[in-house]
């Protein structure tokens, strides 16, 4: 059952087109992240769903019913703002009760709901405080409780964890995900933080310049991106130019920098075509030169340029003889210091399944 459908939404603001035919279908209870750099239109999409922006064309449907022309206060959507937007002149409990009050629900029943939702975010002890006396994480939870207590059809989160420090963010990520699953509320998260998107959402929609480029499960998007920009934006990546140097009926041979050569399914590749090849740093591993199976797996050869220790991972920059830089992330325990001394020759094995080929 679909919870929310966006059907070819286009938005112009001040004579400039901001969204180009944005379409997306979200299942009931699903959590989708809109991920993209600033100015990509993700916030505009969120504000269009909430009803603050009226699209020039297209439709927004909640449970099959169009809500174009419906004012924001008639849409029953819970919105959590980036700056939380807690009402400064109301106590925490009054903030949470606000949506109920606007629905003419007052008295003991509303009090019970407010208490229940404050307990849910573990803040029932601060109900009498004013928002200015709360920490950032507490404000975030109050905003969440306030948006959820009205039993919204859709929960909209605008950069929900952006204002929190690292440790709190990790903790809130887990709590937010649990809460979302527990309540089964259809959720849209707008974020520019890929880690937030990948860890919170069931599916991630990557947006660039006003359009959704790719949508899929976090793992599919990360491992098998169909666009080079998506690969480039999500996580680290090595992108390099290759040439199709040989084709037969089934396979194509690609050749690139650092002696890279691999044979892949041909698809629609033609001889002498230039393509862009991408692989993630963690799918490169160090091999001992002249190892027996080295000629089966595609390899790159170069010199160690620099190493960066990152705790759980060691990042190695390799410079090939034709001046291409590659980045490999390996476990520090799997390598010896001698292998990664700057200037030493090194060869890298590419995991063939994770090699992405993009037509230019």
């Amino acid at each position: 059952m679909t919870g929310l459908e966006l059907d070819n939404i286009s938005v112009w603001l001040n004579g400039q087109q901001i969204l180009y035919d944005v379409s997306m279908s979200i299942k009931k209870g699903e959590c989708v992240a809109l991920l993209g750099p600033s100015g990509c239109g993700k916030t505009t999409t969120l504000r269009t769903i909430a009803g603050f922006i009226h699209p020039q064309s297209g439709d927004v449907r909640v449970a099959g019913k169009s809500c174009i022309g419906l004012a924001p206060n008639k849409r029953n959507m819970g919105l959590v703002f980036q700056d939380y937007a807690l009402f400064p002149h109301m106590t925490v409990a009054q903030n949470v009760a606000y949506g109920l009050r606007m629905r003419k629900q007052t008295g003991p029943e509303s009090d019970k709901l407010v208490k229940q939702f404050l307990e849910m975010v573990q803040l029932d002890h601060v109900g009498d405080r004013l928002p200015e006396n709360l920490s950032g994480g507490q404000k975030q939870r109050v905003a969440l409780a306030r948006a959820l207590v009205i039993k919204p059809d859709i929960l909209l989160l605008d950069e929900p964890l952006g204002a929190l420090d690292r440790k709190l963010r990790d903790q809130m990520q887990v709590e937010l995900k649990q809460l979302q699953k527990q309540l089964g509320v259809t959720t849209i998260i707008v974020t520019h933080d890929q880690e937030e998107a990948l860890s919170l959402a069931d599916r991630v929609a990557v947006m660039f310049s006003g359009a959704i480029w790719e949508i899929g499960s976090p793992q599919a998007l990360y491992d098998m991106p169909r666009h080079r920009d998506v690969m480039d934006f999500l996580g680290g990546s090595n992108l390099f130019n290759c040439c199709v140097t040989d084709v037969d009926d089934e396979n194509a041979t690609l050749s690139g920098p650092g002696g890279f050569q691999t044979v892949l399914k041909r698809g629609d590749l033609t001889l002498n075509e230039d393509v862009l090849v991408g692989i993630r740093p963690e799918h490169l591993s160090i091999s001992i030169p002249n190892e027996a199976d080295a000629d089966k797996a595609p390899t790159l050869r170069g010199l160690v340029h620099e190493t960066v220790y990152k705790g759980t991972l060691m990042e190695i920059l390799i410079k090939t003889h034709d001046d291409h830089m590659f980045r490999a992330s390996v476990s520090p325990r799997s390598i010896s210091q001698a292998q990664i001394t700057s200037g030493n020759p090194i060869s890298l094995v590419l995991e063939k399944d994770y090699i992405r080929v993009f037509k230019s």
Partner: protein
Amino acid sequence: MQTSKAPTKNSFNYAVSITAWLALIFLLAPVLLTAIVSFNSSFFIEFPPKAFSFKWYWNIANIAAIGQSTLISLSIAFVAALLCTTLAIAAALAIARYHFPGKVLMTAFLLSPITMPMVAVGIALIQFFILIGTAFTWYSLLIGHMVLVIAYPIRTLLASLTLMNPSLEEASLSLGASKFMAFWTVTLPQLKPGLISGFLFAFLISFDNYPISVFLVRGGLTTMPIEIFNYIAQNLDPTPAAFSTLYVIIVSLIIAFAERRYRIISYSIK
């Protein structure tokens, strides 16, 4: 940790604070002098005072004209401030939130009485009121004062509106509030400091205005500053000094309370 400041900066700081204190003394000295004179038992305004006495304070009550005109001034100032603050909410919202043709012109027009010579405004007003046949009434005096003071609440409310977080109203709408309820339960409470300081400014400016009132009053319809001035013109005793001292004390208390409670000064300095 103690870091030594550059000596030039130190002496500059001293110079600034000494200048500030001198300015404060310059502003306060006449008020203090008035207060001292008001407690003098002498029948004339003189300095230094000879003997302490409260009698000029009791004398305020004996001068009927001052009492009556103060009541008129209070009623005009209160109604003018109330109406102007209400109208200013609409004006400030329109200026701060919407784009419409002639907005800059309208803003300048609404704020202009502050910068216009009051005598010119007074002459214009009385000519207008004579023309429409309503001159020298309580209502024409009220409207004259409203023209003068509406600029103050507009200014303070514009400051409050620009300081307000715009997502608050959207949060209220998204939680199911109608536009009116969002305004009533979220926007208006956020504007409280601007409303209070705007009201106080309007009230106080109207209450002791002389140059505009002087054109708009006749006979029994007079205001407090005009009666005080008339009294000084005809008498030499310190009763007006006593009245002024009382006035300064009451106003200071009101402003101190409003600042403590609503932090109005931080809003009106903008």
